[in-house]
C-alpha cells in the first residue's frame, strides 16, 4: 500500500477532518463542561465557520485545479472536485444557519440538557453529507448515506415532547432502513455483474458491453430507491410529510435543504460518473444505451412535482405544507437532471443556491411564529401580516420566491431550469412544470391570503422579533430579493463549480 498517497489524500479532505474534530470537541466539551452547554452552539458555529473558510480557500486558491488523476483519493473511493465542493458549501452554509436556527427554537431549548447530543448528531449528519458529495464508490455512498440517516433518525425524534416526535422517528427509521436495504441489495447485484463497486469501473464495465440488461435495470432501480428516499421524490417520498411534520422544525429545515442537497449531489455524480460515456460540445451527456435514465427521471420528476403541489394544496399545517412544497421542488430539480446535460446539472446548482436561502427563511419565520403561536396551523395566521408586518413581509417574500415569481431569486432558479429544458427541446415537460408552478401559487398564496386578507382576530399575536432574529431574517431575505435582480455572482460561482473529476 502506498502510504504517501494516503497522506496526500488526507491533505485533501481537510474540511471533513475539521468537521470530525469539531464533532469530537463537542462530545468532549459536553462531557467535561456539562454546565456550560450554552457555549455549544458557538463551538459548533466556529467549527462550521472554520470548515467553510477552509473549503472556500481550497476552492479559490487551488481553484480545485487537480488533474483528474490526482483527484480520486483513498484508492478511488472519493473524488474531490469543485462540483462536490459546491455542495459542501451549500451544506456548510445551511448547517451554519441551522445552528442559529436551533439556538432560537423553543423545541430545542426545551431539551436543553441534551444539547451535546443534538450537536453531535448534527455533525454526524454533516459528516455523512460531506462524504456523500464526494463518494464515487457505491459502498462509500451507502455508508455515508447510512451515517447521515442514522443521525437523522435520532434527531427526528429528538425532542420527545410530543408523541409525534417518536412516531416520526420510528417511521423514518423503518422506511429508511428498508430503502437503504433495497439500495444495498441493488449494489450487491451491481457488484456481482461489474465486479467492483467503483463508479469509474462501473462506467468502464458498461462500455465493454455484455450486460444482462434486465438484472442491471432491476439493480439500478433498487439503488435509485435509496437515492429517491434521500431526496424524497415520488414514489419514495411517503415518509417526508409525516417526518417533516413530526420532527423538530430545525431538523425539518435541515432535512429539507442539506440532506436533500447531499442526496442530489450523490445522485448526479452517480449518473455522471457511472453512465456518461462522453459529453458533447453542447454540454449534453451521452449515455450508454444500457438504461433509460431520462425516461425514469422524467417520469419521477413529473410525478413528484405534481404530487407535491397537489397534495400541498390541502394542507392546513404549514410545516406539512412546506414538506410537500419541498417534495415539489425536488421534482423541479430532478428535471434538471433529467435533461442529462451540463446545462441541467448547472441549473440544479443554481436552483439549490436559491432554494437554500428561501426555504430556510420560510421555515425560520414559521418557527418564530410557532414559538409565539404554539401552532403551525394556517387557520391561526389570520391577519398576522397586518399585526406583525416584518415577519409577514419576510414570509411573503420567501413564499413568493418559492413560487418562482420575479423579481425574487426563486424565479432565477426556475428560469435556469426552464432554459435547460428548452435547450434540450423538452417542451412538453417544461409546460407541465410551468403549469405546476401555477398550481403551487395556490397554496403559497393561501398563506399570504390568511396573513393579509383576513382580519386579525383577538388571538392573533403581535410578534416582536429580536434584533438578532431580524438580522438573521434579513440575511436570508435580502439575497432572496437581490439575487432575483442581480444573480450573476451566484451563477458565476455555480458555473465555476460544474466540473467533475473521477471520470
Amino acid at each position: 500500500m502506498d502510504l504517501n498517497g494516503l497522506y496526500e489524500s488526507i491533505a485533501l479532505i481537510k474540511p471533513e477532518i475539521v468537521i470530525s474534530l469539531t464533532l469530537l470537541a463537542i462530545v468532549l466539551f459536553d462531557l467535561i463542561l456539562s454546565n456550560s452547554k450554552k457555549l455549544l452552539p458557538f463551538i459548533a458555529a466556529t467549527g462550521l465557520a472554520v470548515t467553510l473558510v477552509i473549503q472556500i480557500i481550497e476552492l479559490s486558491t487551488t481553484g480545485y485545479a487537480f488533474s483528474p488523476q490526482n483527484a480520486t483519493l483513498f484508492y478511488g473511493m472519493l473524488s474531490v472536485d469543485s462540483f462536490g465542493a459546491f455542495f459542501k458549501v451549500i451544506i456548510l452554509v445551511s448547517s451554519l444557519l441551522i445552528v442559529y436556527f436551533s439556538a432560537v427554537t423553543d423545541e430545542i431549548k426545551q431539551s436543553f440538557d441534551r444539547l451535546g447530543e443534538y450537536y453531535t448528531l448534527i455533525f454526524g449528519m454533516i459528516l455523512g453529507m460531506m462524504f456523500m458529495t464526494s463518494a464515487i464508490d457505491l459502498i462509500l455512498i451507502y455508508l455515508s448515506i447510512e451515517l447521515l440517516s442514522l443521525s437523522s433518525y435520532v434527531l427526528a425524534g429528538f425532542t420527545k415532547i410530543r408523541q409525534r416526535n417518536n412516531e416520526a422517528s420510528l417511521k423514518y427509521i423503518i422506511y429508511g432502513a428498508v430503502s437503504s436495504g433495497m439500495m444495498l441489495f441493488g449494489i450487491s447485484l451491481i457488484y456481482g455483474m461489474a465486479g467492483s463497486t467503483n463508479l469509474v469501473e462501473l462506467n468502464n464495465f458498461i462500455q465493454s458491453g455484455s450486460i444482462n440488461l434486465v438484472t442491471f435495470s432491476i439493480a439500478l432501480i433498487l439503488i435509485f430507491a435509496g437515492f429517491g428516499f434521500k431526496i424524497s421524490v415520488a414514489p419514495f417520498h411517503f415518509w417526508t410529510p409525516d417526518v417533516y411534520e413530526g420532527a423538530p422544525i430545525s431538523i425539518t429545515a435541515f432535512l429539507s435543504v442539506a440532506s436533500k442537497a447531499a442526496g442530489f449531489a450523490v445522485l448526479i455524480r452517480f449518473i455522471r460518473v457511472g453512465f456518461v460515456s462522453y459529453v458533447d460540445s453542447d454540454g449534453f451527456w451521452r449515455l450508454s444505451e444500457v438504461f433509460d435514465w431520462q425516461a425514469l427521471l422524467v417520469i419521477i420528476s413529473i410525478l413528484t412535482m405534481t404530487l407535491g403541489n397537489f397534495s400541498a394544496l390541502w394542507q392546513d399545517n404549514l410545516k406539512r405544507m412546506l414538506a410537500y412544497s419541498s417534495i415539489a421542488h425536488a421534482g423541479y430539480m430532478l428535471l434538471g437532471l433529467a435533461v442529462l446535460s451540463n446545462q441541467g446539472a448547472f441549473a440544479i446548482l443554481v436552483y439549490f443556491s436559491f432554494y437554500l436561502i428561501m426555504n430556510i427563511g420560510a421555515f425560520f419565520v414559521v418557527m418564530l411564529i410557532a414559538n409565539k403561536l404554539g401552532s403551525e396551523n394556517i387557520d391561526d395566521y389570520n391577519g398576522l401580516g397586518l399585526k406583525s408586518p416584518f415577519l409577514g413581509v419576510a414570509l411573503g417574500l420567501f413564499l413568493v420566491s418559492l413560487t418562482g415569481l420575479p423579481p425574487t431569486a426563486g424565479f432565477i432558479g426556475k428560469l435556469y431550469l426552464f432554459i435547460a429544458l428548452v435547450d434540450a427541446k423538452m417542451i412538453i415537460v417544461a409546460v407541465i412544470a410551468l403549469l405546476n408552478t401555477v398550481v403551487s401559487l395556490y397554496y403559497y398564496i393561501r398563506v399570504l391570503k390568511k396573513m393579509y386578507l383576513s382580519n386579525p382576530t383577538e388571538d392573533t399575536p403581535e410578534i416582536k422579533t429580536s434584533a438578532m432574529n431580524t438580522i438573521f431574517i434579513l440575511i436570508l431575505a435580502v439575497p432572496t430579493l437581490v439575487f432575483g435582480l442581480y444573480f450573476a455572482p451566484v451563477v458565476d460561482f455555480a458555473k465555476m463549480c460544474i466540473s467533475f473529476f473521477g471520470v
Partner: protein
Amino acid sequence: MNGFPILTLLTFIPILGMIAVLVIPKDKANLAKYIALIATGIQVVLAIVLLSNFNYNAGGIFEQSSFQFIEKFRWIHIKGLSWIGTVKIDYFMGVDGISVPMVLLTAIISFIATLSSWKINKSVKGYFAMFLLLDTGMMGVFVSLDFFLFYVFWELMLLPMYFLIGIWGGPRKEYAAIKFFIYTLFGSVFMLLVMIGLYFSAHETLADGSQVFTFNMLALMDAANYTADGILSPFNPENLRFIAYIALFVGFAIKIPMFPFHTWLPDAHVEAPTPISVILAGVLLKMGTYGILRISYPMFPEITRELMWFIALFGMINIIYGALCALAQKDFKKLIAYSSISHMGYVMLGMASLSTTGINGAVLQMFNHGTITAMLFLIVGVIYDRAHTRGLNDFGGLATQMPVYTGFVTVAFFAAIGLPGLSGWVSEALVFVGSFGVEVIRTLAIISTLGILLGAGYMLWTLQRVFLGNLNEKWKDLKDIDGREYAMLIPLTLIILFLGIYPSALLDVMNTSVNSLVHFLSTNVTNFSISGL
C-alpha cells in the same frame, strides 16, 4: 435630454416613493398619501417632459437607432462555457411612438388613481406602498426593450394587484384576487416559455463581434439573427413558432382580456376598490394589447399575417359578446367591466387589420379607453362612496339630485358610446376604417359595427335607470361631487374632449412608429415560411 435617465426615473420614482412610505412612522400614516401624490405627480411631469422632447419622426419598433431616450446598460453578463454560451441581459429601456402614449396614460391614470385613493383608511401605508410598486411595474412594462426586463416588470405588478384587490376590496375580494392572480400567472408562464425559446433561437452580435444568445427584443425581431436550428427560428424547418405564437398570444390575451379568458375581469373589477379598478381598466388591460404590438407582431410577422383573421374574429366576439353581457348586468361596476371587454375588442380589431389606420386606431383606443373607463370607474366610485350600493335598479333620478355629477357622467357615457367630438369615437372610427379597409377581415368589421349600437343601448339604459326618472326618496341627501372629485374628473374630461377634437395631438406621436410597424410587418413576411404544423 442626452444622458438624462428619464425613463429610469419615470419607472423608479414610485419605488422611491414606496420606500419613503414604508419608513414613515405609523402615527403619521396619512403622510403616505402625500408621498404617493408627489411621486405620481413627478411622474406626470416627467411624462410630459418626455412627450415634449419626443421626436415625432423617429419610427422605433425594430431598430435601436430610432428609439428615443435609450438607456442601455449591461445588467447581467455571465461569460460562457463552451456549452452554455454567454448569458447577457441588458437593462435596456427606450420609447417609440407606441410606448409614449402608454407612458403618458400610465402617469396620468396613476396620478388620478392616487387622488381617488384619498379616502382609503385601512392600512394606509401598506396600500400606498403596494400602489406605488404597481405603478413601477406598469411603467416598466411600457419602457422595457429587453424581454427579460419586460417579463420582470410584467410579473412585478401581479402581487401588488393581488393585495390591492384582496385587502382593500369588496366582499368577495379573496375570490377575485386569487382569480386574477391565477389567470395572469397562467398566461405569463407561457410567455416565459416562449421567451426562453426565443432566447435560444437568436444570436445578437455584440460590439466585440462575438455572438451571444439574447433577450434583446430588437435583436429578436431581426430574422437575420436567428440560428439555423433554434426551435423558434424560422430557418429551422421543424420550428415551433406557430405554437409559440399561440402561447404568447394567450399570455397577452388573458390580460386584454380576450374571450374566453375574460372571466376574471368582471370579478376583479367588482371587488376591487375604485382606484384599483381605475388602474386595472385604465392601464393594466393595455399591457396585453401593448405586448402583442411590441412583441408578438414584430417577432412573428409571418404568423401574425396568417392569423390576422382570427385576431379580428376574437376582437369581434369581444365587442359583441361584451356588449351583450353588459346589457344584462344589474351591477353598475360589472356593467362597466363588461363594457371594457367590449371596448378592448375594438383594439384587437384594429390591430388585426395590420394597417396604419387600424393600428393607429388601436393604440389611440388603448389610450382613450384608458381615460374613458377610468372616468367611468371613478363615476361608479363616487356613487358607491355615497350610497354604498351599485345596483342599477336601486337608483333613479340622480340627475336632479346631483346635476354636476350627472354632467360628467353624460360626458363619460357618450364618450364610451362613441359620440363624435369625444375621444372614444375617433379611435373607434379609425379602427373601423382600418379593419374595413382590409379585405380579409372586412366582414368581421361589418359585424362588429353592431357593437356601436349595443354600446349605445346599454349605456343609455344605464343612464336612464340611474340618473333619469323621479328621484328615489332614499337618495335625497346625496351630495354632489366635491373638490377632490372635481380634480379627478376634470382632467379626464378635458383629455376626452381635447382628443376628440384634436386627435392628431396623440396620433402624430404614434404615427411614424405605426407606419414603420406596418412596413415591417408587410416586408418581412416573405422571408419566413410558416412551420409545417
